[in-house]
């Protein structure tokens, strides 16, 4: 099992190193430069290729704890994908709706989605933290965060 996992990862990394090497060999070179922009990438590409092949044939076994980390129950996969989807929505609408609106909604719905049912505490935390952070960044540190549709 471990070897099969290593073999699959090794193959993916081999393909990655070949792709990286291909791009490294496309980099332009210039005369009179002892070490051009392509030298280090080419070396790294070859080293990764060798290591990836070594991983394919390696017999080292991971600990039981590490193997257990690979078994993700379906409910957890759904939870991870759900949080990922919320993050994507957050990023897509971040600049349009603004930091405060999106962060308040994100913190509230993410906590709720993950099973936190105390709505009043959730609402309090979801409003206080983003507003406090926005105030610190915008008014104290003079770092502009997207205000979106809000007037401030």
């Amino acid at each position, binding site marked *: 099992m471990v070897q099969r996992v290593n073999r699959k990862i090794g193959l993916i990394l081999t393909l990655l190193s070949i792709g990286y090497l291909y*791009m490294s060999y496309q980099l332009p070179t210039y005369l009179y430069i*002892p070490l051009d922009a392509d030298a280090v990438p080419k070396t790294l590409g070859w080293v*990764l290729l060798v290591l990836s092949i070594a991983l394919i044939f390696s017999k080292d076994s991971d600990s039981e704890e590490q193997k257990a980390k690979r078994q993700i129950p379906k409910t957890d996969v759904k939870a991870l994908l759900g949080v990922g989807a919320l993050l994507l929505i957050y990023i897509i609408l971040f600049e349009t709706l603004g930091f405060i609106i999106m962060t308040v909604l*994100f913190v509230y719905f993410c906590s709720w989605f993950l099973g936190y049912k105390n709505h009043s505490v959730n609402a309090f935390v979801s409003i206080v933290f983003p507003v406090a952070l926005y105030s610190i960044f915008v008014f104290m540190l003079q770092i502009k*965060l997207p205000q979106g549709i809000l007037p401030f």
Partner: protein
Amino acid sequence: MGAIEGILTGFEVAFSWEGILFVLLGVFVGTFIGMLPGLGPISAIAIMIPITYGMDPTLALVMMAGVYYGAVFGGSTSSILLNAPGISGTVASSFDGYPMAQQGKAGKALAIAAISSFAGGTISVVLLMIFAPMLASVAISFGPPAYFALMLLGLTAIASLSEGSTIKALISAVVGFMVATIGIDPQTGTGRFTFGSMNLLDGIDFLVIALGLFAIAEVCYLVMNRHKSSAGSGKEIGSLKLSKEDAKEMSGPVGRQSLLGFILGILPGAGATIASFISYIAEKRIAKKPEEFGKGSVKGLAAPEASNNAATSGAFVPLLSLGIPGSGTTAVMLGAFLVLGLQPGPMLMGDHPEVFWGIIASMYIGNIFLLVLNLPLIPYIARILTIPRPLLISLVLMFSLIGVYAISFSVFDLYLLLAFGVIGFLMRMFAFPAPPFILAFILGGMMEQSLRQSMTISNGSISIMFENNISLVLIILSVLSFAFPIAKSIWSKKKAS
């Protein structure tokens, strides 16, 4: 400026009201984050970096250093109370700390951990004060070949000392280096691996990688363990008082392991985790009653606690004097220096004595704060462990997102953060260590620059690497540190067969 004036400048910074305030803030936040299972010093420092924008660099770094050793200190609380170490450097503390807590002596265990950490931290700061300037004065004569060799040693050492497969650790380091090559090459102006995207011309910001690989990846595991209760953290912790016998028993291990921890902290690739394990094993070997270890031994708790805190200060020696981090955490600290417009290294002591000495001097105060704050407040601070996981997850995600956006003002970087979060999660899932990745990413650009400078000096001849004694020794050490784990595994296989 001489050393004495430098030290005085450092204490002036550390004892100013702003210095005291930011040290206090740093150690408190560090203790808070370090205590939370999974979130270690790397995440703590990375999350705090955006808060330092616009701050005075000296005070910002004093605070970040406080976050670092505060997180190591805080990690022990969850090890002792929950057997769920906040950071890997405090895993060894749970071996005897948790059994003690189960015996109803959690208060005593926390007091031993706090006093040992204080002693380890303070002894090592004295050593840091002696050794960092000494090393800096030697390093000032290092040329590009020696610097390249030193960074190579840092990378091979962290890869070979990482937990698990050496091949995976090396792959992690190589991929980290590859990511560092993205963007415009500073010497020739060639765009490398940008795929025609304007967003990648400046390369990828280190905060995206640090928060993605560590904070976001850890959030994924928190999501999977979101229903786990923190039961036990709210129970009575008992008396914090130590008897004379306890004090006598811990004095030996604390003294010995503070020294060992400091030395191991200096070495590239070692750090708090390895230091704490080695100290635990060393004390067990020399103990008169080794059978007591693992069952609530005072020595078994004092040794790793003194050692991991001493290693934290030790790790500052190569960072401050050479400008080269020896671990993932100090790599992120180096990133914090760069964000604040400072380059640590041999010139730092002369160019910015207030930063160099200010950080060191602040550690004395920081360690006192940790002791004073933590001993009486531990029962209250430990309530942090009862924060509902869903809320914690949402807030860590929020801090990570705002941190990345505030450094680049680019939504593209938020997508990258998400992508590196997924990569970090997969790396953990398939046992690829993340510290070699972040170290290689941070050192990558510097290594390439040193190599190119060396090649320019030698007109393209690689022999320059072997002409200088320092670089030659460092390259030999790099090869040895790379070959040692391979030889060891072949030898152990032969022995087994």
